């Protein structure tokens, strides 16, 4: 038996790692991976609460989060490719215009 709060603490630590990566990383792909890390942390807390409250809808929500994350990854990586084509860099400090 593992207390529910241990799962939530692990989920919080993963989310904090994602936020820290978002703040300190300068490579646009690594920043994108930090966002995926945050989504994974939230998924863990969804599944932990689903097990705690004996409600399967938490797991269905994880399914929806994964679908949205996959769609987001496809669009985001296409945007990264478009940005790299015009600017030839992946450093976000050199990407300061929305215009392509």
């Amino acid at each position, binding site marked *: 038996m593992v207390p*529910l*709060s241990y799962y939530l603490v692990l989920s919080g630590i993963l989310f904090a*790692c994602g936020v820290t990566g978002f*703040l300190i990383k300068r490579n646009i792909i690594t920043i994108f991976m930090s966002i995926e890390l945050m989504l*994974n942390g939230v998924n863990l807390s969804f*599944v932990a609460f689903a097990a705690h409250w004996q409600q*399967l809808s938490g797991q269905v929500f994880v399914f929806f989060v994964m679908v949205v994350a996959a769609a987001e990854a496809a669009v985001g990586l296409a945007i990264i490719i478009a940005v790299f084509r015009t600017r030839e860099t992946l450093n976000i400090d050199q990407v300061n215009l929305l215009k392509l």
Partner: protein
Amino acid sequence: MFHLVLFSVFGAICVAGAVNLLVQRHPINSALSLVVVMGSLAVEFLLLGAEFVAAIQVIVYAGAVMVLFVFVIMLLNAGAEERTRGSHVAYLLGIPGVVAGTIIVCWALLTRSHAGSASIGALPGHPKEIAQLLFHQFLLPFEVTSILVLIAIMGAVVLAARTDSAQTRKED
């Protein structure tokens, strides 16, 4: 006891992978440590009895999404990250804020919660029950996500397609 040992081992692997993602300079190393994080999270899902979620975590996240990431990293030939001085506000306020927030949340969860505990396989997360929920109660959100995925596919094709204007500008 066995459950707690499994939880601790894979939780430690998970946090180690997440920290390694932050420490590594090269994006490909970060991507591979993210695969480690996702694989050990799938084990945590299995411990909670969410078999279906664990399977799609491995197939969709560690499989499809990370292949996409590695593909883009190799396509763009991304080298090691340059250390430019970014925003000082992010370093001076953001990181202490994140650390303080995490400590407060962990402290509150560990000392103030009377939430109970979860045992191995606490909830039957078989695909059958999930499908019954997904195709009856959550049918409308399911259809909406299918439209979302369709729009995302079209958007990705439009964004990644090489346009003529971008090509001529590069030649100038």
